[in-house]
């Protein structure tokens, strides 16, 4: 125990954070490289030693990566994890572990059977220890094998992996994983650091809470704890924490009203390492900490009734590397002190026998131990741990460690991958080990630095779905099978064209963080004068002009430089030479095109570089709300004047001198020099619910190049040659982008997303909210007319009509049955829609005697029969040849559906049909009959 005072001073310095965000689990295999690069894909066969051939999901051909460059490959875990085979866990030098059965042991070799590797003969010098697994030890976690399965806070992912280890030097970095901790558990962990240990390792923790609050701990110890009112979760902690307090490692645990802390060990300054085993009895809350040689270092006891499953490591202000974590079940017996320097055998009864294991008698299941006291036979069933080769040397020739789905691991040099099987050679094993890829969970490499690129190459960062890769574009041309974007990852010895249709970006220079949104009113003061500074940079915006002809001598009247914004996101420097009914006419030194149709234009900036005027949100909404009155004549443009005024209308024409704008069907002229910018409001944007794509069908093959000065060009790439990307735009013509100067290339759907975030592109019209009465009507029909119809509740007017079938119909004769009358005519579209629905609903109640009689209004028999035939209906039709019956029922609109109860009174009346009629009619009839509709019987 340390003093409360010390504890207090240390705890007060603590800062706590907890990761609460689950990391995305990889769905497919992912190859990780230094610099945070990765490729999802799959491992391909390759005969090249110490090289992995990786087929990325984004590339047409596989990349070859030297094993030395790889950080890790993680494969998807098996859905149903089977426990490892065999009676023993064999701990090999270098941290390898195999599970299997012992076949033989000699002074030189050990022979084991370790599925799926099969029979293996291993130099005895490579075997460190044999652990008996049954019946007391089952591993629930063996790792780490990289970050897979570990969670980091979404906004601070500061951990990385190296040879499967988890590493960080970021202050406050937290990593956590779910891990089912047995009721009696042994947690073995190995943590190292380069400079300074300052971490918290927690056993038993959940996501939501902060596991360590120094101040609270002090309050608990001092008996001053006060139950906080903010809620229980804030004051509750669980688990056991190994914490570094200055130069000491302590074990801490605290609950609402109890806490305990114990000193574990001093920690080395500078580079150091810690390898401990903690034995936890969750029932009693007792945690005992032991060194590997069985010395008890500390013990605390804090019941933890709400203990959760999970382990967490948080770096505070040092650096930390989690090298090993093994969580297994424990039989409750604490270890005994044992030397790690001499071979020995720990037995079930707790005794330790020192001596070298000479051999193993497989038939008798006995070990032959040669010790100071001579030879001794030990039953295999009594031996729980056999230290065979203390201080064994790690294998020297190892490029990869393979971690199997069972948790076993093996290190070696990669010989080849053939038939989806890894061929691996390990020091001390005479044979080549064959590992089916399907049995591998991870391949861990030591790659931590990427090679330098060739001289003069500009490195970019490719970000696609399933890909993050530093590298560069090599020359390539568009083919039927692949794009011209040929990617060379810096860690790979090969390159490949990327697949068509990808969405993502290639970043050469990250964009600056967005400026705070404080629109200046600078536009109010600006005059539409040329801006040579900006213009000078824009003229050669993309490095190479399509043709070198000088721009036509600009007339004074069109010399004003402008920016054309296309809906696809392009920003093209140009002169606006005119606007007419068809589109915008331009003159540009950057592109060949001289005309852009309206449907492709989003805005023109006649005063370039000016911001939009400061418009408060209310005014902006007003400008962008389309009144119902104008629904069929929506404004198509926002005209923004240099003084900040905004006019909404339809731009009809613009020439050098003036613009013509139609406002409420009247045309107004304005001097062009008073216009700062014009925004196009497209109907397709208004009907955004229709999901109208901004880009053409071929959007998935487009690339948008972004220059440092904000100029953008969107085009279909055709070739990469001489450090330039060359392509063609259906609007702008030929395009060429210098890869040495471009900031970013956007690909596919990412273009549209980026475009939507540009300032002008957020200006879109929206429909005014429809009044409720119109929305109701839109659903069809007025519904029940009970409140307004004087007929409801009254005796139904008598009907005596001839039926289309030739018989007579008299309503009064139907008393005792519910009758539904449906007034209709063949020329009435809504009637034609409603009749089948009415017929169907009434049929549901046939068993209840409900009868449907449709009443045709003033049509001849042939017309009636024709309509019934078209609708495939056979309902009874009463012929109201003179409209007199309809008149007695006050029919002013059809369809009108009248429900008459068994007493002969009108109970419901529906006008207008509509989508809700069937439900309403069903409900009405149901209220008059005791039985539910047939469909519900």
């Amino acid at each position, binding site marked *: 125990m340390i003093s409360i005072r010390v504890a207090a001073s240390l705890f007060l310095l603590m800062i706590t954070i907890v990761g609460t965000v689950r990391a995305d689990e990889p769905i497919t295999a992912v190859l990780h490289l230094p610099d945070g690069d990765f490729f999802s894909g799959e491992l391909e066969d390759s005969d090249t030693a110490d090289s992995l051939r990786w087929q990325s999901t984004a590339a047409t051909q596989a990349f070859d990566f030297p094993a030395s460059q790889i950080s890790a490959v993680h494969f998807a875990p098996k859905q149903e994890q089977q426990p490892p085979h065999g009676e023993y866990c064999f701990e090999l030098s270098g941290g390898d572990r195999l599970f299997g059965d012992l076949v033989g042991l000699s002074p030189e070799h050990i022979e084991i059977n370790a599925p799926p590797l099969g029979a293996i003969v291993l130099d005895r010098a490579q075997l460190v220890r044999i652990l008996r697994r049954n019946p007391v030890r089952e591993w629930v976690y063996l790792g780490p094998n990289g970050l897979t399965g570990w969670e980091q806070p979404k906004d601070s992912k500061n951990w990385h992996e190296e040879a499967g280890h988890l590493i960080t030097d970021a202050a406050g970095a937290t990593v956590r994983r779910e891990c089912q901790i047995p009721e009696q558990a042994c947690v073995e962990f190995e943590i190292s650091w380069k400079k300074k240990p300052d971490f918290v390792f927690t056993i038993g923790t959940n996501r939501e809470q902060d596991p360590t609050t120094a101040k609270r701990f002090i309050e608990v110890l001092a008996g001053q704890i006060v139950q906080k009112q903010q809620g229980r979760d804030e004051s509750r902690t669980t688990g056991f924490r190994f914490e570094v307090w200055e130069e000491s490692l302590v074990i801490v645990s605290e609950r609402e009203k109890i806490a305990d802390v114990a000193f574990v060990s001093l920690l080395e300054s500078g580079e150091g390492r810690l390898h401990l085993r903690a034995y936890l009895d969750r029932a009693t809350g007792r945690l005992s900490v032991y060194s590997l040689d069985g010395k008890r270092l500390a013990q605390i006891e804090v019941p933890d009734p709400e203990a959760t499953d999970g382990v967490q490591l948080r770096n505070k202000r040092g650096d930390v590397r989690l090298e090993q974590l093994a969580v297994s079940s424990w039989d409750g017996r604490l270890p005994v002190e044992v030397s790690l320097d001499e071979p020995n055998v720990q037995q079930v009864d707790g005794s330790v026998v020192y001596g070298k294991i000479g051999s193993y008698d497989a038939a008798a299941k006995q070990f032959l131990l040669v010790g100071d006291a001579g030879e001794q036979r030990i039953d295999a069933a009594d031996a729980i741990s056999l230290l065979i080769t203390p201080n064994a040397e790690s294998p020297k020739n190892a490029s990869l460690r393979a971690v199997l789905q069972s948790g076993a691991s093996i290190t070696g040099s990669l010989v080849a991958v053939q038939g989806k099987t890894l061929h691996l050679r390990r020091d001390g094993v005479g044979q080549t080990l064959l590992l089916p890829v399907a049995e591998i969970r991870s391949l861990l490499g030591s790659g931590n630095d990427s090679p330098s690129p060739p001289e003069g190459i500009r490195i970019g960062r490719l970000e696609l779905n399933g890909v993050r890769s530093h590298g560069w574009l090599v020359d390539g041309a568009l083919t039927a099978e692949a794009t011209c974007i040929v990617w060379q990852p810096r860690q790979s010895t090969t390159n490949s064209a990327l697949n068509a249709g990808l969405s993502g970006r290639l970043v050469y220079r990250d964009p600056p963080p967005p400026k705070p949104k404080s629109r200046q009113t600078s536009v109010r003061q600006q005059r539409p004068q040329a801006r040579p500074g900006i213009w000078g940079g824009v003229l050669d915006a993309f490095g190479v002009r399509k043709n070198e002809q000088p721009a036509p001598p600009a007339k004074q009247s069109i010399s004003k430089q402008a920016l054309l914004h296309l809906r696809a996101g392009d920003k093209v420097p140009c002169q606006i030479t005119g606007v007419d009914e068809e589109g915008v006419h331009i003159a540009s030194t950057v592109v060949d095109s001289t005309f852009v149709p309206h449907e492709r234009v989003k805005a023109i900036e006649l005063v370039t570089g000016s911001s939009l005027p400061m418009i408060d949100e209310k005014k902006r909404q007003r400008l962008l709300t389309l009144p*119902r*009155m*104008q*629904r*069929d*004549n929506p404004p198509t443009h926002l005209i923004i004047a240099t003084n900040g005024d905004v006019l909404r209308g339809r731009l009809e024409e613009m020439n050098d001198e003036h613009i013509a704008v*139609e406002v*409420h*069907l*009247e045309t107004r002229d304005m001097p062009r020099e008073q216009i700062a910018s014009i925004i196009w409001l497209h109907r397709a944007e208004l009907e955004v619910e229709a999901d109208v794509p901004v880009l053409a069908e071929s959007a998935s093959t487009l690339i948008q190049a972004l220059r440092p000065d904000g100029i953008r060009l969107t085009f279909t790439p055709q070739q990469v040659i001489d450090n330039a990307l060359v392509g063609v735009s259906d609007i702008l013509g030929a395009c060429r982008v210098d890869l040495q100067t471009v900031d970013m290339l956007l690909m596919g759907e990412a273009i549209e997303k980026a475009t939507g975030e540009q300032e002008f592109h957020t200006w879109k019209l929206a429909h005014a909210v429809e009044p409720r009465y119109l929305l109701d*009507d839109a659903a*069809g*029909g*007025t519904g029940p007319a009970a409140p307004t119809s004087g007929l409801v509740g009254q005796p139904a007017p008598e009907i005596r009509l001839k039926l289309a079938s030739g018989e007579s119909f008299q309503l009064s004769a139907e008393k005792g049955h519910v009758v539904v009358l449906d007034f209709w*005519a*063949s*020329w*009435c*579209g*809504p009637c034609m829609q409603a009749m089948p629905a009415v017929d169907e609903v009434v049929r549901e109640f046939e068993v209840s005697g409900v009868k449907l009689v449709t009443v045709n*209004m*003033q*049509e*001849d028999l042939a*017309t009636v029969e024709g309509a019934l035939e078209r609708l495939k209906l056979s309902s009874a039709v009463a012929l109201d*040849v*003179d*409209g*007199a019956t309809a*008149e007695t029922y006050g*029919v*002013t*609109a*059809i*369809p009108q559906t009248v429900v008459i109860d068994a007493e002969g009174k009108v109970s419901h009346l529906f*006008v*207008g*049909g*509509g989508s809700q009629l069937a439900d309403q009619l069903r409900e009405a009839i149901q209220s008059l009959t005791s039985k539910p509709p047939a469909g519900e019987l």
Partner: protein
Amino acid sequence: MIFIKSIRQTLLLTTALVSPAFAQPPTDHVGEVVPRDVREMYDRGLQYLAKTQTEEGGWRGGQDGPGVDGMCLMTFLASGEDPNFGIYSNHIRKALRSIIRSQNASTGFMGNSMYHHGFGTLALAEAYGTVDDRNLWPAGDAAKARSIGAALELAVQCAVTSQKKNSFDAWRYSPDANDADTSVSGAVLVGLLAARNAGIEVPDESIDRAISYFQSMTSDSGQVAYSGGLGGFDESLARISIGCLVYSVARRKDLPQYTSTLAYLTQRLEQPAHGYREYTAYYESQALFQGDIEAWEKWNKLLVRQLKEAQQDDGSFKGDFGPTVATSMSLLALALNYRFLPIYER
């Protein structure tokens, strides 16, 4: 849902007024030359109607009958092509034969409702004096078939008789109906006015009573009720246009109801129709044209823009009552730009 009023509106078509029995020659047109895009749009629509006309001279699909045939007939007549020798002269004669064949030889009733009868009457009136009916019927049929004039007279008789039986002095679906609505009544009244303008005798009393009916259905605000008297108005640009049109074609611009209906329309030139767009445009175009030529010019600009967007690749338009009705009504709304139909004369 559709109110019967509106419903019926759908079926109907038109307008009318007319005066002389002959259309004005192109040189007499008021205003600018018809823009090329309007001409092209109209021609494409005509080609659609020409292509979809049946051998019998009518149109099928969606609503059909003498009223629809009449709308299509007027669309051809309004194009400016020579009705007797032009490229659509056969289509015109076939449509006329179809309408006349549908007429009951004794009652004069055309179609299965007075909507059809009204539009059929209007179409006959527009053709009367324009189409040379010496060539209308094939040699074998000529003896037993009626001429355009005879059919028109018979149709007028039917409408007048129906009105006399109606206590509202107006019309509804059945020629024998005893109730009325402004939609059906508009169709029939415009037909009668066109017939009168074409030289057929129509009793003044009939026109006066019908106008009185419309007056009784027009509110001070200019809204026009559908059926059953004032009260419970809903806004229908179509009915307001019908009211405005019948007042002006009946030469009753002196009426306050004319002023209020016209004002209602001119103050809402951008307002969209609540359903039955083609039907509304058909009447509104004529009402504005007759009432306020400057307002019509603005409104017409919007119409042209909208129709250009709406026209299908085959030249047709979509609408509530099928492509035939939507196409013919849309083109007739546009046809004010040509002003060839007598009824379009101001």
